[in-house]
């Protein structure tokens, strides 16, 4: 049995959409910008509940980011939402200048992130978004692991007075976290304690890591699992502690191998306690059409890949 139970399957994007409606009731300043994919990113729920505070900008993501910046300037709490690639890659310069450099607390909430968006193919599989957003000064980058955490994160973002990027996924995925558990940006969740190796994962790979830990436990390998839901600001303390106590790190994410969570963790390790690290991520390639779970396997970011990476990193650790 895995140490966490999958209670149901629900999409992180739904958690986002439902949280927006709750926020709409709680705070009259919350506004949502729509880029014509409202049903997909689940801002349709807010649109129906608060039509006056829903602003359609059409399929124009660059304009959406600027409009959101203007709304933030006059005290609104704008959520700008579209698919991951169109929320980061396309309007990168707008986010850089009008939001990050101008330090306006816009909430950029993107759905359909990662390769698991599946059948739409590589154009829609945002595998670079974490890297693009985390290199921007003032920007916070977060990736919830399930529906409950998505909801909590979106609600917490209102009090987080910084530009922020949050990535959600399309598919219905395991719901396993406690809906009443605490959430704090920049404070990693240690889901499973272990002593020999640590898997640091974000997004859907957190569940894969939990499944991998079950396999590893059967092999008598003591594996720590950390849900690194905030990629920036990164919980350096949790990383250094894991490196100190377990001496081997595996990172796992639905993102390119360069510049994502793995890169962020490696930067910390290199500057503090150099430690063998293996990267479970999409290996510098574009994706293709297919089902989410098929793609996870083909592109090497599923449970089995985490198990293999743990074996590999432990071999390296033993040679030290």
């Amino acid at each position: 049995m895995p140490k966490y139970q999958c209670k149901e399957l629900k999409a992180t994007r739904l958690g986002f959409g439902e949280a927006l409606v709750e926020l709409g009731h709680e705070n009259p300043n919350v506004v949502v910008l729509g880029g014509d994919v409202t049903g997909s990113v689940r801002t349709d729920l807010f649109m129906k509940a608060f039509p006056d505070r829903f602003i359609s900008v059409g399929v124009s993501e660059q304009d959406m980011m600027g409009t959101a910046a203007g709304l933030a300037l006059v005290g609104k709490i704008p959520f700008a939402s579209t698919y991951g690639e169109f929320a980061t890659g396309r309007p990168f310069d707008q986010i850089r200048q009008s939001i990050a450099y101008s330090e306006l607390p816009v909430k950029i909430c993107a759905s359909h992130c990662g390769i698991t968006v599946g059948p739409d193919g590589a154009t829609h599989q945002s595998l670079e978004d974490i890297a693009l957003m985390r290199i921007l000064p003032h920007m916070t980058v977060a990736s919830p692991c399930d529906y409950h955490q998505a909801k909590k994160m979106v609600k917490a973002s209102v009090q987080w007075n910084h530009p922020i990027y949050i990535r959600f996924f399309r598919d219905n995925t395991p719901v396993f976290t406690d809906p009443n558990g605490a959430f704090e940006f920049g404070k990693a969740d240690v889901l499973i304690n272990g002593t020999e190796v640590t898997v640091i994962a974000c997004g859907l790979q957190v569940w894969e890591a939990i499944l991998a830990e079950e396999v590893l436990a059967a092999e008598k390998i003591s594996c720590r699992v950390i849900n690194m839901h905030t990629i920036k600001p990164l919980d350096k303390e949790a990383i250094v502690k894991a490196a100190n106590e377990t001496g081997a790190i595996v990172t796992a994410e639905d993102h390119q191998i360069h510049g994502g969570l793995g890169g962020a963790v490696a930067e910390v390790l290199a500057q503090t306690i150099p430690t063998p690290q293996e990267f479970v991520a999409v290996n510098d390639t574009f994706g293709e059409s297919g089902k989410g779970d098929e793609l996870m396997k083909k592109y090497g970011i599923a449970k089995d890949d985490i198990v293999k990476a743990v074996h590999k990193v432990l071999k390296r650790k033993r040679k030290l």
Partner: protein
Amino acid sequence: MERFDVVELKEMARQIRRDIIKELLISKSGHSGGPLGLADIFACLYFNILKVDPNNPRWEERDYFFLSAGHLCPVWYATLARRGFIPLTELTTLRKINGRLQGHPAPPWTHGVPGAEVASGALGQGLSIAVGCALGLRLDKKPNRVYVLHGDGELDEGQIWEAVMTAGHHKVDNLTAIVDRNNCQIDNYTDKVMELEPLADKWKAFNWHVLECDGNDIEQFLRTVKQAQELRGKPKVILAHTFMGKGVSFMENDYKWHGVPPNDEQGKQALSELTPTKYGDFIEFEWERQLVEVGAK
């Protein structure tokens, strides 16, 4: 502050032109032509039109002004200094390290200047921000007005037209865009680089009120803004026809003056054409001393 009348505004515009030349002579880097062409409009904005408080740049009741074409900032900085947002002597720090007068403007909380609301420099972003700002104010039923200034070359940017469409769709009528229609951009005249005409028709087609005026004629510009303020139901754009380099004979209507500062000799000549005003120069003696030093070499 009492609103300046036309005579005072003309005098102030001339002073702002002198300030621009001096800023650029000291920084030895920056844009000359566009800022000079806009001195009349900036004098009108800050000494007659905009509701602002230099002692409280983030005053809740202020009108919002965005300089979308950030490279035009020498005229903005000079105007902000004349209006009291920053000390006049600070104009000597344009583009210098540890200063607030960035090469392209930024807000005060990120190395920038009081009076700037956001960063601008990468072109074409200001209108979207202005639309968001205007929509937010409208949601709160606030009377503040929103103004945004664009260069005409800037209209090549696709994001501008996204925002033009958004503003038209939402009938954002607390917003006035001003286009500095000087027909010049870095490489050449605008019709050589990218044809913009029929420009008024383009904005009209996107459901805007379109007004045109001579942007170097203070009376006409004030009248046009007043007219714009009274129009309802659609966002407003003023196509303000100006001359790049206005006020300095050898710079006027020459696109080559888009992005370069005058050298000392050219600066000296420019200042001699822009005769001193009652407002006084911010570094008169130092500048004269510098000129003497240059002449002696």
